[in-house]
């Protein structure tokens, strides 16, 4: 299987006067169609890694290849264009535009990419909303939806431009357990049906234990990187990120 993501010795330093190295040389390969999770305590650098993988930021050193193209040398506008065409994002706080309706939010990546086929695009947005179980909510303003519904719209939006990679940053962090499970199952279904590569950043061991592969990050380094069998999530649970639990103490899952 070809690699969806490949990084070579990624280093990220913040600050000019006082330098703060957040990532100390990350080497990572993620295969196409993989459903992996990145887990680690706050401050471990997992969000920074996600920014780099999501083409939101450039590394200080090292190389990133996404789907075969090197992106660490692109400028801001080229990165923006790359994100629009190749990456879908699902964020913790859904991050939808409250000024627009569900279907308009789903179509947003398409508008940004200046599609020239508005009718077809609207049909696709409708289908996606149907796929995430929001048939009938197409023309509702975002502010009129529940938390779970908003996150479903966000998932539909991330699929709009048919990206091969979807990055989810704490996609269920803001939801109750039942809704979390539903959203997770939805992502999983999409992964199976469309063969989309998923990377889920989480500090939820339940979620991590359900993914195919767990990458544990501690202090800017990959501490552990292992494959899971999602069918045995309860057996896995104890094994996932024990260090992380030890480190973060009270932060352990509810």
């Amino acid at each position: 299987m070809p690699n969806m993501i490949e990084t070579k010795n990624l280093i990220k330093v913040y600050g000019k006067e006082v330098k703060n190295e957040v990532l100390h040389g990350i080497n990572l390969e993620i295969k196409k169609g993989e459903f992996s999770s990145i887990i680690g305590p706050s401050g471990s650098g997992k969000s920074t890694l996600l920014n780099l993988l999501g083409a939101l930021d450039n590394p200080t050193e090292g190389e990133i290849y996404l789907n075969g193209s090197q992106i660490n040398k692109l400028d801001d506008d080229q990165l923006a264009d790359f994100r629009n065409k190749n990456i879908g994002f699902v964020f913790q706080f859904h991050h939808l535009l409250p000024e627009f309706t569900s279907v308009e939010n789903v179509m947003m990546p398409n508008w940004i990419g200046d599609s020239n086929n508005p009718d077809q695009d609207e049909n696709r947005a409708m289908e996606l909303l149907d796929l995430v179980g929001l048939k009938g909510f197409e023309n509702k303003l975002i502010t009129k939806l529940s938390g779970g519904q908003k996150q479903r719209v966000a998932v539909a939006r991330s699929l709009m431009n048919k990206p091969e990679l979807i990055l989810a940053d704490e996609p269920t962090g803001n939801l109750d357990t039942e809704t979390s499970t539903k959203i997770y199952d939805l992502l999983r279904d999409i992964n199976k049906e469309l063969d989309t590569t998923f990377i889920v950043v989480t500090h939820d061991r339940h979620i991590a234990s359900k993914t195919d592969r767990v990458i544990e990050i501690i202090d800017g380094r990959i501490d552990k990187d292992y494959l899971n069998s999602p069918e045995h999530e309860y057996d896995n649970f104890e094994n996932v990120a024990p260090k992380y639990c030890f480190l973060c103490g009270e932060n352990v899952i509810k």
Partner: protein
Amino acid sequence: MWFEFKVAWRFLKSGKTQTLLILLGIIVGVSVQVFLGSLIGGLQQDLVNQTVGTSPHVTILPENEIPRPLVVNEDKYSRVITFASSTSGINRWREIEEYLNEEEQITEVSPTIDGSGFAVRGQKNLQVVMRGIELDKADGIYNINENLVNGQADIGGNNIIIGTELANELELQPGDTLKLNTSGGVSDRFIVRGIFDLGSKELNSSWIFMSIRRASTLFNFSDQISNIEVQISDVFASDQVADQIMNRFNNINAESWQRNNQQLLTALQSQSSSSLIIQIFVIIAVTLGIASVLAVSVVQKSRQIGILKAMGTKRKRVGIIFLIQGAILGLTGSILGALSGIGLSQAFVTFTRGATGDPLFPITINPTFILISIVIATSAGMIAASIPARNSAKLNPIEVIHNA
């Protein structure tokens, strides 16, 4: 652009109160501007019209001669000297008239013989100015035909036309006869054919038009005339035209209305500059208003901007969203403002009337001026939006996304 416009529109729509407030600000600003501009424009045009509308812009006169003593009476206690200036007229007037007719910027040329005297009827004896004209030429300046209120404009032979005030004073109707005495001692009877109203009490009470030929014999002018009256297309070029004529011909003097009305022109100019200053400050206030509202809006919408950027919106396009907001605010506000300014002007014309029930002065709505106001307000809106636009373009999506 469609995408930027759509987002800009929704952003404006979602902050209704804010949008309405700033729109109101622009509307008030622009309507004050349009109203003030129209008012002052109308006032000035009215003043200029009253001054030069139905009067010559340039008058060509014989050269002034130095008054010379005529009679000296001397006795033990006093000395009385009577001065007289030359009463000679313009000799080469046909040549001058021909030249004036050739000039492009000169629209009307009317050779005239003027003389003073008295109109006598019964016991009444009124001082009048007798003006010998060629009707079709003088009509171009005074609109005699249009301003005729009674009778007809016929000045053939001994026919004359007189002003309304004079007709009232002497109780004259078309068809009546009127005796005129010139200051030179000549006296004759004339038939009143028409009565005009030139819009000025002074002219209506003293002017009498007759044919130039009749005036020539009445005042014994032989082949001279007293002056040539000229109107030009650009009334504010009267100085140049007068100078040009004086340079071309000797022994004549050309007077322009501008030189004769220096004070009025200075007043108009200072009025224009004060109105311009007011308008500039109104525009500055409007610009600051738009800028501050949009600056707040960038902060309010920073999350949305971050999301749009994360999904691949380029920096420039985010900036354009705010520029479009500025343009929408400026354009809508200034169009509504212009309309309400026109409404205000109309209301002013309707509600402020003089004693006669006529508007005090007509307000001229100048479409170019209004268009300029709209363009300026819209550009001001975009300029005001450019600072927030730059700030929004600088916004880093990462910070926004992770600090929800």
